[in-house]
């Protein structure tokens, strides 16, 4: 669905800090939303988390950076990082081009998924939240 200039994908979960997560079996893929990438504009660097490390919900797990701005990527859920998108090291612009696709940031094996999901928004909830942000 479309909210203003921004795309919101059905079936994903979202945070108010503009991360998305996609459930893939017992794993979760994490990225930043179309709104996040458009707000930053030209992304020139992604500070990726380390594969094998653990993250706690709401803690910074990396950053997405434009020339002049830095946005933290906050972990939407707790768990172990099992994969990171190493393509972003050479092609950070993938986050601009395909925020919900090839611009994903990391895959996490969640440790407390049921509780963590309760705090997240579904597509409809995020779309409603976005409307309040962009007016």
């Amino acid at each position, binding site marked *: 669905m479309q909210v203003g200039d921004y795309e919101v994908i059905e079936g994903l979960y979202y945070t108010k800090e503009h991360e998305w997560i996609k459930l893939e079996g017992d794993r979760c893929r994490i990225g930043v939303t179309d709104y996040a990438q458009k707000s930053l*504009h*030209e992304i*020139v*660097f992604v*500070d990726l988390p380390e594969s094998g490390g653990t993250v706690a919900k709401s803690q*910074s797990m990396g*950053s997405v*950076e*434009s*020339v*002049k701005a*830095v946005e933290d990527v906050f972990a939407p859920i707790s768990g172990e990082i099992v994969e990171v998108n190493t393509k972003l*090291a050479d092609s950070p612009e993938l986050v601009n081009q395909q925020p919900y696709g090839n611009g994903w940031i990391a895959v996490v094996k969640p440790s407390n998924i049921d509780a963590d999901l309760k705090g997240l928004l579904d597509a409809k909830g995020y779309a409603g939240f976005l409307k309040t942000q962009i007016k």
Partner: protein
Amino acid sequence: MVDFSGFELPIWYKGIVPECKAVRNSVGIFDVSHMGRNLISGKDAAPFLDYVTTNDVSVLEVGRGHYSVMCNEKGGIVDDIIICRLTEKQYLMVFNAGNREKDLAWLNAKAERFRVEIQHVSDAVSMFAVQGPNAEKILQEMCDEDLSQISRFGGKYVRVDGNKGAVTRTGYTGEDGFEVFTWDAPIEQPAKAVAVWNAILDHGKAYDIQACGLGARDVLRLEAGMCLYGNDIDESTTPLQARVSFVVKLTKQDFIGRDVLAKEKAEGAKRVRVGLKVLEAGIPRAGCDILKESQVVGRVTSGTFSPTINQGIAVGYVPKEYAKTGESLAIRVRNKDLRATVAGFPFYDSSKYGWQRTKA
């Protein structure tokens, strides 16, 4: 749009990266009407300016200008400025937007014993910067004077697209270029200023001129190693610490801050401004710690990703023993210590970019 010293200014038009590339490779235009502008005239204009600024105004011939600073009695920088002698008895002073009121109060307080008139024209005269290797070609089509005769930092009264104005060969990008002043273009009646802006864009079409925002302006000045007042310099830093000692002319008899600066020059500044190139992925930002062998030795005052050299760059202050070009330091960015090396200014290869470039 962001608020910048009370002015609403765009961060970018097309994007910071393409705007920076346009300026380095061809030409860009910036609305810098927020900058402070004074016309200083009167019998004592030169002696007055020589008293309140550190560079030598007495040597400026008509049509010449220079970069300078105003210091307080402790040698701290009140503001960094450009002075250009437009006529026999009139000097244009360009200063920082955020310091408008402070500078005017400072100048007026110091002017008492001089026969001098300080005319504040910031809101009556528009100001655009046209920057890049093709800037002169575009403006020459619009001006009634031979711009090639204007030296770096020099300037003169010209008609710009038929309007009374002046140009100076100055800028904040490291590139060749001009700052274009249009008289009788008050900020509350912008029609004339907008017409000049649009005329420059029209003439620039053949060179793919790009309108540039504050983001590109900050990146370009940082790539060139130029100071941003409030970040890299302020009243707690001296021009010697900021490594703009070329603007401090101790040959002058008397100017504000002279005693402190003379002493510091004799002893050597203990901490100095350096450029740092990051040797791995990551972007340093203002406030990051600078480290030598895991010990914090300084702090970044400006940092960015440089689209021109495609790596992270920073400016900060470190003790002088770590200030030599090639010194290995680190910058702590988001809890990671990134390897960095002390680099000279500008950060880019000045044979390829900047006003001194030798390769077309």
